[in-house]
């Protein structure tokens, strides 16, 4: 099977956050995800793109369909060459507080999706890859 074409959205500004999540929703609907799941995917993309704009200033969101042994899904990769995350374990802890500070929102993104992988090197950048499978 030929590799699925990849959609790439360069992330530079808050406008690109909107574009990336709209592209993600469109792809999710094309792949047959329900409107509800497409919203979860679009929300996750919005958070990941926001982290890029806030912490790294620029980066990219890549989207493509994926095929497991018996199922189809969507892969979202958010990458940047920003400052990186010095303590990933801490970043993955739920930082919700009554003051409304949300930290990086990564634990929330993990809950929205089925699979979550993060690699980060201080000074080199961060890559977050998340997958959602069609039920």
């Amino acid at each position, binding site marked *: 099977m030929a590799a699925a074409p990849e959609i790439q959205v360069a992330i530079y500004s808050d*406008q690109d956050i909107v574009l990336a999540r*709209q592209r993600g929703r469109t792809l999710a609907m094309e792949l047959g995800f329900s409107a509800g799941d497409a*919203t979860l995917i679009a929300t996750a993309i919005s958070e990941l793109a926001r982290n890029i704009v806030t912490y790294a200033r620029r980066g990219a969101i890549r989207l493509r369909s994926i095929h497991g042994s018996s199922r189809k899904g969507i892969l979202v990769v958010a990458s940047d060459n920003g400052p990186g995350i010095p303590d990933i374990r801490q970043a993955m802890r739920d930082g919700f507080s009554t003051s409304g500070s949300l930290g990086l929102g990564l634990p929330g993104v993990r809950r929205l999706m089925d699979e979550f992988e993060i690699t980060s090197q201080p000074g080199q950048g961060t890559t977050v890859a998340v997958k959602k499978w069609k039920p």
Partner: protein
Amino acid sequence: MEVPILKQGEVLIATFQAALSDADLNQLRSGLVRQVVKLRSRAVIVDVTAMDVMDSFASRTLREIAHMIRLRGAETVIVGIQPEVAFAMVQLGLTLEGVATALDLEEGLAYLTQKFKNID
């Protein structure tokens, strides 16, 4: 894309048209607070029916709007959060604590009418 703000009696109604950028949301926040002061409004309804995604920034901005409006002595009601958007918000851990919500514009107006009646 700017959010139009309509005036209906003592209530201001802001209806989100589509996906809004952070800049649009910030503009809405300052626009609403300015209008509430200028028009001496008693309440604001923010209709988010058309909103595709409510992420951390959007929900924080809505919370800020509600708190700023309250400091002016007026009330804010968020209406029209779609079921799938609500589900995503819960998964993300986002809350609109301390902010009134209603099913739709009609319910939002009914809530405010009741509230004003109790005050007057």
